[in-house]
Each structure stands twice: as C-alpha cells, then as structure tokens.
C-alpha cells in the first residue's frame, strides 16, 4: 500500500477496498476469538476434553515429541516395563532352545 499522493484514482480505490476488507476480516476474527470460541469452550464436553488433556500433560498443538509434557513419564514407564520383561525372560532363558531375550 503506497501513500495516496503517489497513486492514481483506481489505485486509491483499490487501497480503500483492501483496507475495508482488512477491517472486515479483523472484526470477524475478533468476534470469533473473543466471543464465539470462548462460548464453545464453556460447553461441558469441551471443558471435560480440555481438562482431561491438561491433567494427562497432553499438548494437542505439539509439533514434536519434545513439546509433549507427558512424554518423558510415558517413555520411562515403557522403558521400565520392557527392561523388567527382558530380565524375566533372561531368567527363564537358560534352558530355552531359542533365547527370546535376543529378540529385544
């Protein structure tokens, strides 16, 4: 958008149209984000879903695993479960023909 004194009449018209369109979009987004979405967020089902995610440490907007608060605990739980299982398999493996522990 250029200062008006540098523009032809049709360019000025285009500027005004662009500015008007931008104003309409801003107002629409403001209504959506400040009124409609908060109202949707107050619905019981949505509140339950949001609270459930927050309690479990789930960030639905996470792009990468490092952004998930719940992941370290989940990962350590899985590591501990599998290492306990491997230890138990090795205890029983001494007489086995094929040591299952080798699969892990």
């Amino acid at each position, binding site marked *: *958008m250029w200062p008006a004194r540098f523009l032809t009449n049709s360019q000025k018209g285009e*500027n005004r149209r*662009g*500015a008007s*369109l*931008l104003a309409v*979009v801003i107002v629409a*987004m403001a209504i959506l*984000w*400040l009124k409609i*979405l*908060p109202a*949707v*967020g107050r619905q019981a089902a*949505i509140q339950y*879903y*949001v609270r*459930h*995610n927050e309690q*479990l440490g*789930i*960030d*639905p*907007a*996470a*792009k*990468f*695993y*490092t*952004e*998930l608060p*719940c*992941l*370290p*605990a*989940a*990962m*350590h*739980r*899985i*590591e*501990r*479960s*599998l290492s*306990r*299982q491997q230890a138990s*398999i090795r205890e029983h493996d001494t007489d086995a023909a094929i040591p*299952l522990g080798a*699969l*892990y």
Partner: protein
Amino acid sequence: MNDSSSLDAPVTVVETSPWRSEDIWAIWLAGTVLSVALAATWLARPADHAKRLTDFEEIAGQLETAESQNATDSESLAALRKKSEAARARLAVNPLKTYVAKLSSWESDPLKAFVDAQGHSLLPGLLGTLVLVLALFSVGLMGVGDKPRHFALAFLFVFLLATLAFLLSGQKVVKHYNLEYALWALVVGLIVSNTIGTPAFARPAIRTEFYIKTGLVLLGAEVLINRLLVLGLPGVLTSWLVTPVVLIGTYIFGQRVLKMESRSLNMVICADMSVCGVSAAIATAAACRAKKEELSLAIGLSLAFTVGMMVVMPPVIQWLDLGQVVGGAWIGGTIDSTGAVAAAGGMLGDTALAVAATVKMIQNVLIGFVAFGVAIYWVTVVERTPDAASPSLIEVWRRFPKFVLGFLAASLVFSTISARGPEAQAVTSAVISGTTETLRGWLFCLAFVSIGLETNFRELRQYLASGKPLVLYVCGQAFNLALSLFMCWLIFEKVFPDVARTLSH
C-alpha cells in the same frame, strides 16, 4: 524452496561463495545458539548436583522396586513417578530459559497469553526473543552478503504478526483441536498480502528459507537417536518399516498413477502424511527445494485431516476392540501431528497414550534420515538432466542442501551427550525445553508468516484446481492406515504378544 512460478522449472544453482550461503549461515546461527545454551546449562549445574544425582537414583530405584512388585496402590505409584520426574528435572537448570518465551494458552482473555502459569509476565522473555532473533539474523544477513540496514523495522513487523499467530493458536479450543500456529501464521500473512498488500518496508525481513533452515538445525538437537529403541524391536518395526514403505509407495503412486505435475509437492505431501506432519513437511520441503505454496498446501491438507482422524480413530479403535497397545501404536503410526496423536491416545487410556506418543516419537526421529534421503535423491536423480551422466560427487556436494548436515550434526552431538547418563540427559532436556524448542517454534512461525506475506490466493488456487493433491493425500493415508493396522496387529498380537501384555499392566 523455490520461487519459480512455473511448475517443475529446472533448478538453477546460482554460483555464490559457499561461505555466503544461507545453508552455512543457518548452521552457524543455530550452532551458536546450541553451543551457548549447552555450555551455560552445563556450567550452571547446581553446586550439589552430585547429591541430586544420588537422590534421583535412589527414587528411581524405589520406583523400579514398587513397579516390579506390581504394587496395587496406584496412587502411591503415581506419586512416586511424579517424584522421580521432579528429581530428574532438578538435575539441570537452563539459566537462559527466562530470556526466551512463547505465549501461554488462554480461554476468553487474550491478555492471559502474556502471563505464565505462575502469573509472571512473559513480556521480558518475548522481548528477549525479539532481540535475540533480530541480532542473530542481522549477523546472518551480513554473513550472506545482504545489508541489514532496514531489517530491524521490517523484522519488528513480521515478529508482531508471528506474535498474533501464536495468540490466535493459543486460544484453548483452537489449541486442543490441533489448529496449530503454522496455520494461523499463514492465514495472518495471507490476509495482509491479499488485502492491503505486503508493505514494502517489511520485505527485508521476509526470509522464509533462512528462518526455516535455521529452525531445522535447531530441531536437529531434539532428534535424539537413542530414543529409537525405547519400544524395542516392536517399536522399530512399527515405525521404521511402515513409514518408508508408505512414503515411497505413495510417491510412486503420485508420479505414475496421478501423474502429479510437481514432484516436490508430491514428496512434501508424502512426507507430511507418512512421517510426522508439519515438521516433516518443513524438513522435506527444504530438502527438495519445494515451492512455498506447495509447503502451505501440504500443511493445510495435513491439518484438515488430522483434526478428523484425532476425533474419529479412538471410537473406531474401541469398536474394533483393538486394545490399548495395538490401538495406541496404530494412532502413533498414522495421525500426522504429534500433539494430535497424544490427544487421540489419551482418549483411549494411559497405556494407549504412552504407546502412541512413543511410536510417534520414533517416527519424529526419522525426520533426519528422511530429509537426508530426499536431499540425496533430489540432487542425484530429480535435478539431473535426462541425457546427462550421473552427477559427480563434487556436483552432488555442490547441490546438496548443507543445512541437512547441520541438522544431522546437531542430532548426533545431542544424542551422544544424552546417552551419557541421567545427568547429561537432564542437561540436554533443559537446553531443549528452555531454549531451542522455543526459538525453533518462533523461527517456523516467522517462516510461515513470510510465506503468507508473499503468497497470493490465486497462486494457491491453481494447486487445488486439479484435485490431485487431495486425492494423493487421501489414497496415501488410506494405505498408511491399512498397512499400519496390519503391522501393529502382527507385531503386538502375533510376533511379540508378551510385549503387549507387559505394556498393558
């Protein structure tokens, strides 16, 4: 990425000094951030770090004992797990954490986005981020031979738009339905460029590729290769067998059956859908020099389908009675976005959440290998003229997107450090969560705002007109769903049923 207006235009490699390329400077800038953050966090280890390590090992031992005895008191077990995580977090503190910040989520009052969970203002951190990124890229622009004289004002404008994008994505309903910041950054940029037009003063800061490449090198530090084996062989088979088969199969389908005009668009959509959503799309787009509009389209498709899959898959899994382990693994292997995977897994239960998030994490680690493979394929096959001989190694090196090497190097360094024990792991986690993850997010957001500011709606429409990208995505995702389900069932029900039983307890 390319600016060429014609599809599949041959790539012209402009001869510049390699030391002035954005790729090299992306590595320098990101490398500086990673080195400084790592050194600061290591040096700032608490004076009693040896005692804290002992405490952590003691609590970890107590937790191990309680779990192996199948303790039925789930409340005390949960409390012990929390104590263990807290003890782990105390092993290292990132002193630079307060100098960078991202907005908080909010419900009805957007001003709450500028305050953290403890009620402290985030403005100092936001200002710190602005100053840091401005300084970094001012140096970077000088390095690539540009004059950053008008950069500061331009950057302030683009940064404010990125802040608005984060604000829009932080509204809780928007956030919890996975309508992430990349989408809003694009929308904000598109609104400006298609209404009043992108102001001329903002152009010096529209540096999409530079932001993306630097962000990707920072992302490399989060790709910890030792995470690959968390789920053992079952996890590797679920993630690493299915993903390349779907990626390559869908790409071939796009070229041979759909006859997609743009190979790069095909590849970005395939990576987006088969690996892990937006982050894979960004990495692949940079590796194969896709156009900005192609990246935008791929991300738009992915986000649209992700929301649907996140809502539909959990009830389908319950109806099919797949169980939490198979169901969680299926979710992890198919839903594009990491956050949406966790949300969907969480709807099924704790075990499904743990398995889904872990499978997705393993897929996240694949990003580096995919980006590297795509870059090699593009340079040696796609960009080769039909009658030319195979490119020499020097030619391959010259054309290769060097930032991928920075990405891999960051991954290797941080993986090596992280593998040295709980204290080193705590240091790398503190660096990632306190500095690099936040900066990486800002850089990607700045990149998407820049894409929006340079894109005309008409340019996007031409890609949608044929419908092929949509057909490609739908067919590829259908293939992904079917193959993933089969593999998850085979691995966790038939080949390693003991693993599934153990994880279920």
